[in-house]
């Protein structure tokens, strides 16, 4: 293709996005668009899968059968989200095995939040309420993103995520209204998960390298800082409603902006976690890689069996 032809295609492509048309797998797309989407969608899929671990950690210890069942259903949903997202990603010509390889080798990232440990039951509430809450703020705009398969996956994902978030908040309500010991447990979980949840919305606009391009492709509608502000404004009243305190001495309602001012995020901690040195990075990867390696003989058996079955079928046909 000549340079001029490519320019022409690019112009048509940009025009389609400007008209809010969806880009579909067989459509022409710039290589950079394809790569950015593989990066973001696979990172999203990996986050769902790694995210099963901190919550899976409490399945056997959930305090009531009702909570256990809800937690199992939630973790099952997450695995399902992982599946949709890997499938959506595969429409861009990359295989799930390649994506796993990128995750296991550390080449691909997953959400930094899952590198924090779930150490009490209240963490199941905090993760649902805050982590899923922040995820929803990030993800709802993606239901309208320009790449069709991603947008459609997100419609389903977001429905289930809002349900999980309500479940998490309900756990917190119950604890906050419970015994003093339960209330302390809830407050402690909020203290530990608050700042990492704010970090989930990404680096400040000044440091965010992908923002401009992502805005153009409608992968992003608002900047990280705007989304963070939205999350804070939405979450602070929810904490107040159940009598919990946000662990930020600088948090204050700003009458003029009609929004909360808040304290400085510890970006050193953020980068430490992103670069692999958070509290649980190594264990999470060990669990994922371990499951993959230990499961190899099972996957091999399934392949061998499928081939044998196929052969038998062919023989019968003859």
């Amino acid at each position: 293709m000549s340079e001029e032809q490519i320019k022409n295609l690019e112009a048509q492509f940009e025009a389609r996005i400007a008209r809010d048309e969806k880009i579909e797998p067989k459509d022409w797309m710039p290589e950079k668009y394809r790569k950015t989407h593989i990066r973001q969608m696979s990172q999203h899929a990996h986050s769902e899968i790694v995210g099963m671990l901190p919550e899976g950690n409490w399945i056997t210890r959930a305090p009531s059968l009702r909570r256990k069942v809800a937690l199992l259903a939630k973790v099952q949903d997450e695995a399902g989200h992982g599946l949709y997202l890997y499938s959506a990603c595969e429409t861009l010509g990359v295989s799930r095995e390649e994506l796993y390889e990128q995750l296991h080798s550390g080449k691909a990232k997953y959400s930094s939040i899952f590198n924090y440990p779930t150490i009490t039951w209240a963490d199941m509430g905090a993760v649902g309420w805050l982590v899923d809450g922040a995820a929803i703020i990030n993800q709802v705009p993606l239901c309208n993103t320009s790449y069709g398969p991603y947008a459609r996956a997100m419609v389903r994902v977001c429905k289930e995520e809002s349900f999980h978030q309500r479940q998490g908040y309900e756990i917190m309500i119950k604890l906050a209204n419970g015994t003093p010991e339960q209330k302390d447990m809830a407050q402690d979980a909020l203290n530990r998960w608050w700042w990492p949840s704010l970090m989930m919305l990404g680096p400040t606009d000044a440091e965010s390298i992908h923002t401009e391009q992502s805005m153009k492709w409608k992968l992003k509608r608002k900047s990280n800082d705007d989304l963070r502000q939205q999350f804070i404004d939405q979450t602070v009243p929810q904490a107040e409603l159940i009598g919990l305190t946000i662990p930020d001495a600088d948090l204050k309602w700003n009458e003029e902006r009609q929004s909360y001012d808040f304290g400085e995020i510890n970006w050193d901690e953020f980068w430490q976690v992103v670069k692999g040195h958070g509290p649980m990075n190594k264990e999470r990867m060990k669990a994922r890689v371990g499951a993959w390696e230990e499961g190899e003989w099972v996957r091999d058996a399934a392949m061998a069996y499928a081939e044998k079955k196929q052969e038998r079928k062919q023989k019968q046909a003859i």
Partner: protein
Amino acid sequence: MINENLYKYILGIADNSLILGQRLGSLTGHGPSLETDIACTNMSLDLFGQVRSYYQYAAKIAGDNRTEDDIAMLRKEREYVNVLLVEQPNTDFAYTMARQFLFDVYHLLFLQELQKSKDLTLSAIANKSIKEVSYHLRFSTDWIKRLGDGTAVSHQKMQDAIDGLWTYTDELFHQTEADKAMVAEGIGVDVTLLKEAYYEKVNAVLEEATLEIPESKWFQKGGKKGIHTEHLGYLLAELQYMQRAYPNMEW
């Protein structure tokens, strides 16, 4: 208690699902593939759903304000009456699937009979559970075949798992006093009558999976009387931790 035999009878059914559900629940996120992870979590979820129906009914029969969670989490190790099979550890995927299969075949046969119970609640629970357990059985049967008739490695692992768990199968067909009383009333299932169909079905699948049917006639028992393997104590320590550490609270 209005009907102690019925109460004990229900626990005899539900404890199996509780303990197996707990075993499956600990696998979440650690399976050989995303699909098997989803399936094992799903089976665990089904089993706990069934457990809740049974214990809620048992709590009502007990009539002393105890709840499903009291029954699930506040009994001592000698008071659980699940069969030994379901408390066996998730040694590897072959063991997990063999345990599942050996239980599912029984579970489905059992529920098909329980559906005919004179007790309408039990018959309704059975009716709902049959659909789920048919799925479980299809899943575990497929994996017995895949692993048995897959590679040399998987064949060996599956054979080891079947050999290792075989000793716990006979207990499925033992009767407790509560069982006998409930059978006499037309409420309970006479499990002794399921034995033949069970081994017929199990053997057929093992044969198709190119596996040897174990010949041992030595079997273990005790679970139904609360005499368990050493595995159960650890399992209960996790299951009960929250209820023990924070008693009398709502979650």
